[in-house]
């Protein structure tokens, strides 16, 4: 007895065998209907009897296809096993744990207080080396700060602006429409100041790394002594979550490193959690609105599904409920 196999090849083989059997049964029906005789009433019965006899050999034909299905299943299984992802730790880094972010989930919004604190962490700790080219100060309005607060924060920086009427470049205090300032003039300057390593732009880091938010949190809090026998060269630091294990960034998130303006105790994990909230928002600022729109339109879609389904069945009702009478007369 053939076991139930579930493989693409098996399914295709079974479907092909069914098509072949169908064609055979159609042929049997044709032979039977040509042989039928006189009475209208007994016609269908005679046709069906003849049909069953003719199509009786379908069981033998089906067995060959079952064998093919089994072979197909075996081949697919072997191919599938060979492609298992072994999560090579040296290549991908230690797999980061899944933290219970409060913004995970279909109906969960960002924690905007956390985004506000995260921006403070970024400004005081990360902005020294990392740029964030795609975020402007005005993007924070309505998300973490009011408009007046944003104007105040933007005014803290100096920005080079275009030629004035005399044709000279001048510097002015920042406006909300300015983008976050870059700490280095270009990539070469960044590499030179960081021992050859380029601190990546953080605007999209949570989307640009696999499992971004969990990875960044684990990375920031994951600095530890290298295990016995492992040594990292001078200038690098051991971090198991970084692919390769040796990262050029030192541990920057430390207990009490900064003071939050709202008085939250600044433990390392608090700072890391807030900065990752901020970075996740920076990578996906539309997330709250996207989830809302998704909920509304999937709900409307479900209502429409019922309506469309009913309409289809209403239109098809006359056709599905009709009766066909085979009135074969020679």
């Amino acid at each position: 007895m053939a076991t139930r196999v579930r493989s693409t090849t098996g399914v295709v083989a079974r479907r092909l065998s069914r098509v072949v059997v169908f064609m055979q049964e159609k042929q049997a029906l044709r032979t039977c209907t040509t042989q039928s005789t006189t009475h209208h009433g007994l016609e269908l019965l005679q046709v069906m009897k003849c049909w069953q006899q003719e199509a009786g050999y379908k069981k033998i034909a089906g067995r060959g296809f079952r064998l093919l299905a089994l072979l197909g299943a075996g081949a697919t299984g072997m191919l599938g096993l060979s492609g298992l992802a072994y999560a090579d730790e040296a290549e991908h880094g230690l797999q980061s744990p899944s933290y219970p972010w409060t913004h995970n989930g279909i109906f969960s919004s960002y924690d905007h207080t956390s985004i506000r604190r995260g921006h403070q962490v970024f400004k005081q700790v990360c902005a020294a080396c990392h740029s964030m080219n795609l975020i402007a100060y005005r993007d924070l309005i309505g998300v973490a700060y009011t408009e007046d607060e944003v104007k105040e924060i933007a005014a803290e920086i100096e920005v080079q602006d275009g030629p004035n009427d005399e044709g000279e470049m001048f510097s002015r205090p920042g406006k909300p429409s300015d983008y976050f300032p870059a700490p280095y003039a270009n990539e070469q300057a960044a590499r030179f100041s960081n021992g050859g390593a380029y601190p990546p732009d953080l605007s999209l880091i949570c989307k640009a790394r696999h499992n971004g938010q969990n990875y960044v949190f684990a990375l920031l809090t994951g600095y530890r002594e290298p295990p016995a026998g492992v040594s990292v060269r001078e200038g690098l630091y051991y971090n198991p979550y970084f692919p390769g294990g040796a990262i050029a960034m030192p541990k920057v998130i430390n207990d009490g490193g900064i003071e939050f303006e709202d008085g939250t105790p600044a433990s390392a994990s608090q700072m890391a959690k807030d900065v990752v909230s901020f970075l996740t928002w920076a990578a996906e600022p539309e997330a709250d609105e996207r989830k809302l729109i998704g909920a509304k339109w999937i709900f409307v879609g479900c209502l429409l599904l019922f309506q469309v389904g009913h309409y289809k069945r209403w239109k098809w009702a006359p056709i599905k409920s009709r009766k066909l009478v085979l009135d074969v007369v020679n």
Partner: protein
Amino acid sequence: MDQRRRGGFLDTTVRLLTRRNSVYIAFILTGALVGERVIDYGINKLWESRNVGKRFEDIPSLGKKVAEE
């Protein structure tokens, strides 16, 4: 032959609405306008009930930076 079917609630409404195309179209348009507002309100209420305290408006130190000046 068939006696006239006793209309249920749905039967009567559908008959009233689809009898004339002008009524049908008017129903669709007003239904869309009103329905969108109702659904927006309902889902926004659900969203807020699930995300208490996480909204921008709920930030405790909102406006404090400027007030310190």
